[in-house]
């Protein structure tokens, strides 16, 4: 039935008024009737039909009493006649598409768009159809294939047509179709080839011919090989992404704990302060500069550095300074501080999570292979982590403050003797570490939840990274973060998230037993008492 209708459409031309009955069925009918109406509209094939389908797909189709309207903003046109309707009827109801209808709509619209003069539209339509097209679309696809001149589109359309012809058609056509499919890297192709190789309940194959099955087997291997590469790339990326988050969370601690030796249990809470600063900046932008909302991060990043850094310097001056060289007291004091910070934030912002919205450019992702999508938010965070790392490295190796920090770390007494103001260097270094924790909070706010307890979930991870990497070494922190990222993601893909977490923890405990100084250790350093 539908094949016939589409074939009819291929020959139909010109603009005739849409049949009211069909449009009414689309708007008021049960879903079976709606599906039939979509097919009928595809058959009508003119611009008005396409407009009605497009409107339904975008949720712009509404009903008012008995009439069906296409409503765009404040303007409405009658779906049947195309006449303007003014004023807008007050009582309107949306025509709502469910998944089944949306699937049909996407296919129908893609079919209609295959012969568009613009290449991008044709490409999008072909991609849509490649995801699984109805066999009824075959004549449409073949027609488009004949007309197509673009090489890439031609091969895509070829694959789509091949997929459709897989089930029926002569033996030669089937073999040709299967060989054609072997060049695809679409996960749906695998599904299709598997269906050829499937055995029925009585033990007979879905595909009766032995030769065709052999070809299908070979094509399947080729497709699976390519898909496996996509998968490996995916794991690589997620590992780097997790590693970069661990790195950001741990970098600040690598300075306060690694270089300065302060067991800072409030590190997680400084991350949280950074995240809340981002939230506050976001709210300011929303209230005062909604037009520039997409750029709020440009202000949030410096603010998320400065505020926690200030908090950190205040803490160092008021509490931690008096406890240097007394690790147990430091641990208890900073833990107390962390509770104070959590409660303060709870009092100011409330106990519930707050929402930090991503700027527009950070939502969505880029598809590097079919089925492998790298989300922009993760890419931005990986780059951000790299930038922060570079910044710290430059600061520690190229500036006077960095020189002092290294000097004080390696030999406090000697540094003091040659005139380094060690107490002031301590304050600055601690502020720096806390500021970096704040930057981590800013990054985390973009992908996770922001609540008063945010820091608690990162403090353990941060310590794990720093201890594993070796106290006192930035390079160790980097290797440890990436290494843990990889270990976690590989294990997660293999054994699930819960076991992966446990396994990583056990691994670290064993490793620290064997090598207490971590991956990298400073050699011959005068340890302070």
């Amino acid at each position: 039935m539908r094949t016939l209708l589409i074939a009819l459409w291929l020959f139909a031309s010109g603009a005739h008024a849409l049949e009211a009955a069909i449009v009414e069925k689309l708007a008021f009918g049960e879903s079976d009737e709606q599906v039939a109406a979509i097919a009928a509209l595809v058959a009508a094939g003119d611009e008005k039909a396409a407009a009605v389908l497009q409107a339904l797909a975008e949720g712009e189709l509404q009903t008012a009493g008995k009439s069906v309207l296409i409503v765009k903003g404040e303007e409405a046109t009658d779906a049947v006649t195309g006449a303007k309707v003014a004023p807008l009827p007050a009582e309107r109801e949306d025509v709502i598409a469910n998944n089944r209808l949306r699937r049909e709509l996407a296919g129908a619209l893609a079919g209609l768009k295959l012969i568009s003069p613009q290449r991008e539209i044709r490409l999008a339509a072909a991609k849509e159809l490649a995801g699984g097209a109805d066999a009824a679309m075959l004549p449409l696809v073949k027609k488009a294939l004949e007309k197509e001149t673009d090489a890439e589109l031609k091969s895509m359309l070829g694959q789509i047509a091949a997929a459709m012809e897989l089930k029926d058609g002569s033996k030669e056509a089937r073999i040709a179709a299967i060989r054609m499919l072997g060049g695809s890297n679409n996960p749906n192709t695998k599904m299709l080839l598997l269906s050829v190789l499937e055995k029925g309940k009585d033990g007979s194959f879905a595909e009766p011919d032995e030769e065709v099955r052999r070809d299908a087997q070979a094509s399947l291997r080729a497709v699976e090989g390519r898909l496996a590469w996509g998968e490996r790339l995916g794991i690589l990326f997620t590992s780097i992404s997790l590693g970069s988050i661990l790195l950001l969370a741990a970098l600040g601690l690598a300075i306060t704990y690694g270089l300065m030796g302060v067991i800072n249990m409030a590190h997680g809470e400084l991350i949280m302060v950074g995240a809340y600063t981002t939230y506050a900046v976001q709210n300011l932008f929303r209230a005062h500069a909604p037009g520039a909302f997409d750029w709020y991060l440009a202000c949030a990043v410096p603010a998320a550095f400065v505020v926690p850094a200030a908090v950190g310097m205040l803490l160092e001056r008021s509490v931690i300074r008096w406890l240097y060289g007394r690790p147990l007291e430091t641990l208890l004091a900073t833990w107390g501080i962390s509770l104070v910070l959590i409660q303060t934030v709870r009092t100011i912002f409330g106990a519930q999570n707050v929402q930090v919205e991503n700027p527009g450019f950070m939502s969505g992702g880029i598809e590097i292979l079919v089925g492998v999508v790298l989300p922009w938010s993760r890419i931005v965070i990986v780059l951000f982590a790299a930038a922060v790392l570079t910044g710290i490295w430059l600061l520690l190796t190229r500036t006077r403050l960095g020189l002092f920090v290294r000097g004080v770390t390696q030999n406090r007494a000697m540094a003091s003797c040659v005139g380094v103001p060690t107490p002031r260097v301590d304050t600055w270094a601690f502020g720096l570490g806390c500021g970096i924790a704040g930057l981590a909070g800013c990054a985390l706010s973009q992908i996770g939840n922001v609540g008063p307890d945010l820091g608690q979930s990162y403090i353990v991870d941060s310590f794990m990274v720093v201890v594993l990497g070796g106290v006192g070494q930035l390079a160790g922190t980097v290797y440890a973060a990436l290494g843990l990222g990889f270990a976690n993601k590989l294990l997660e893909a293999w054994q699930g998230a819960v076991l992966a977490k446990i396994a990583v923890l056990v691994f670290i405990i064993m490793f620290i037993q064997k090598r207490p100084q971590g991956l990298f250790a400073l050699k011959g350093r005068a340890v302070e008492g």
Partner: protein
Amino acid sequence: MKRRNFIKATVLAVSMAAIGSGGYAQDKGPIKIGVLHSLSGTMAISETVLKDVTLMAIDEINAKGGVMGRKLEPVVVDPASNWPLFAEKARQLLTQDKVSVVFGCWTSVSRKSVLPVFEELNGLLFYPVQYEGEELSKNVFYTGAAPNQQAIPAVEYLMSKEGGGAKRWVLLGTDYVYPRTTNKILRAFLIKKGVKESDIDEKYTPFGHSDYQTIVADVKKFAAGGKTAVVSTINGDSNVPFYKELGNQGLKATDVPVVAFSVGEEELRGVDTKPLVGHLAAWNYFMSIKSPANTEFTKKWAAYAKAKNIAGHKDKPLTNDPMEAAYIGMYMWKQAVEKAKTTDVDKVIAAMGGQTFTAPSGITSTMDPKNHHLHKAVFIGEVQANGQFNVVWKTKGPVKAVPWSPFIAGNDKKKDEPQGKTVIAK
């Protein structure tokens, strides 16, 4: 040992006496109501509004003269998404504050944690959230859905032509008792329907998990083997990163629909729902349902949220299924107290069976005379671009709850009534 037992017994006796005598001493004073919902931690995203809607119902009842001429006085505590703390707070409510009834809990692990306390002290708990069944206590009324009122119909819908005809299933959940049990039931159900073991993939993440990259990528990979649907029993704030990841990775509902049992209007508040259009949720109530009772309910909530300055809701009031269940629970308790003419726990329990209430979901909700569960209509909704759900399927009328799922071995012998209920104290 002996001494400990003696102390235990004494404490028990004293506290029981305290409850008993409390009832008489306060006959003229206000009736105390315990509210036991997490207001901080991972579950706060879901539970905070339940506290608010319970307080709203109490305000309403008080405005109309209270119960039997006595005002209701709420006692709100925060168990902070900390399961052992739930038990402590429950004990505090029952023994120190001497509340007549407690409305509370979301996760099953918190309910399991307070259950021994309520049974020991003979308290009364109204639990407003859908759960996995496998439990019947005389001290608890379950106003949320049992598996046959939510999970099973949802899976049946996804199997149907209308729902996409799914052949492969990813059962994805947070790692605790509710998702584990629900998935056990669903697995048995699917296998009975002819789905192969290899076509079912069960996955769990810890509470508060925030990195769903691998999971979403795995779902994609699994979906390459046939038409796949995902059943999500992820609970709490993990849902926000999960749905963000779904949107970012472009997993569309037309290809792989995700049906969730613990995600409603409130959980999607902070998420951009445009990429999520078409993903599903199964509940017994949606805010978008059109019924006079619902119009009134949502209006009241909007006004209350504005008056009480409830964060988020004062600008964009949202209602959801557990809120409705909590609201129904409060009114049914009131009716039962009025019928029993006392707040005495055993008498109220006896009076609860058969209570009816015009639910916002558009049906008349009935408390089963025996099994402590509500008869509920089931709705399946698709996420819309505005964060609301559009009902795409519903049952013809209310469905009786089956807390002992027939898909778990041995349940056919269990009675559809809590034990020890007939005991009348005093």
